[in-house]
């Protein structure tokens, strides 16, 4: 049902944790639905230098969180905003149809963290 890449990211999730002095934090989903993602990003000179996540959810939720953090790390804020759920799912060699909403959550979590960053840093830094 899951691709090897999904299982790899589920078994060995990258960038799990929290950033104490995060530049932005985004939390999406809710426990009622069985998925919560929290993303912390650290932005320096408009570049995402660090990103950490915590996820309550299924395999696909964990794997998409993990993949999304890898995809935005080292990118500029503008580049990170271009991240789509489709790209995350593709990078994982696809997701079962019923799990597509999980990849949507990963995109939303990154965007929420970036939005929080913009709110806290209206002039960029």
């Amino acid at each position, binding site marked *: 049902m899951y691709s090897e890449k999904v*299982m790899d990211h*589920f*078994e060995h*999730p990258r960038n*799990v944790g929290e950033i104490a002095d995060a530049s932005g934090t985004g*939390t999406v989903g809710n*426990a*009622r*639905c*069985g*998925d*919560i*993602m*929290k993303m912390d990003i650290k932005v320096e000179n408009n570049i995402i230098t660090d990103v950490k996540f*915590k*996820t*309550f*959810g*299924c*395999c*696909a*939720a*964990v794997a998409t969180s993990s993949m999304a953090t890898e995809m935005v790390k080292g990118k500029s804020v503008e580049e990170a905003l271009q991240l789509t759920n489709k790209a995350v799912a593709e990078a994982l060699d696809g997701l079962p149809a*019923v*799990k597509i909403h999980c990849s949507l959550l990963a995109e939303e979590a990154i965007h929420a963290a970036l939005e929080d960053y913009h709110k806290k840093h209206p002039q960029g830094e």
Partner: protein
Amino acid sequence: MAENKKIIYMDNAATTAVRKEVLDVMLPYFSEHYGNPSSIHSVGRDAKRAVEAARKQVAAALGAQPQEIYFTAGGSESDNWAIRSAAEMLEKKGKHIITSSIEHHAVLHTCEYLEKYRGYRITYLPVDEGGLVNPQDVKNAIADDTVLISIMAANNEIGTLEPIAEIGKIAKAAGVLFHTDAVQAVGAIPIDVNALNVDLLSLSAHKFHGPKGVGALYIRKGVRMNNLIFGGAQERNLRAGTENLASIVGLGKAIEIAVAELPEYTVKLTKLRDELINGILAEIPDVRLNGDHAHRLPGNVNVSVRYIEGESLLMRLDLLGVEGSSGSACTSGSLDPSHVLLAIGLPHEIAHGSLRLSLGIGNTEEDVQYVLKVLPDVVKDLRAMSPLTRPACFA
């Protein structure tokens, strides 16, 4: 790597392995004794005898008469048939059915169909926090137009054993047909259709080490049924189609062995079950047992592990060779967790973190110890990854 991994199968409520003794009696019925039981020649008569011998075995296991056993393609088919037929045959008497909120979907969805398209009124009785139906509620729900009561013998998710004997007595006194979905109960607890006052009972072979795709419906003599399938004289004209010969033979053997071994099965599994339950509750904080402890299937363990999600828990265990199941939304194919867990009052977020380990005859003391060794670390790991924490969850 994965190929050599030892598998600890603890999903016996989903299905079980066919026993060797069962497979052995089935095999000749594929290519040696391949006759059509409806044929009048010796090859056909040979097959017919095998079907009737299996019918006797099933009847004996339930305290029924052979002519009260009808072979079907499994538990869901038996449930569908029992409810639809009772409803259609008694339509003139009334259009009210009493069931519970924790039935299998084979029962619930059939009732929903009757409600939506056939103008039936369905009473879905609530259950207590252990999943028990109160017989008094059944009694109170009976009205002049009640034609059927359908309450399961044992719940498939949380293992709760329902007070079937008491409900049977109430149904009999009120003159209302009583159906029980005994798919999880047959082979796991003693069942006697007369002692229980059951009129219709569904069972499925693959839950007690028989083959998949075959089951039976017990229909008490005198209960009028309509056809499930038209087109032949099989199963007393009610379910047409050439019999699933080898599987029916397998069902007969499997139920015979299961009932004969019930005493030792009960002792062995109850011990392993309680060890596993007590171990989990002792080793892992913020875990609750789902289902009634005293009225429980011998092999059922169902716990909710807070702050983590069931599918992740299952897959982590799978990677360690432990096979279980969950009532989380992600494993049910919908956004809602199991209707059973919600019916016993669990909040969604706790229901999402449920884990069912259903033990069977293949499980050992070592299996239980292994699970108790690996489960706490898996939980710790997933909790470290979870944004939920005690105050956030229970604020």
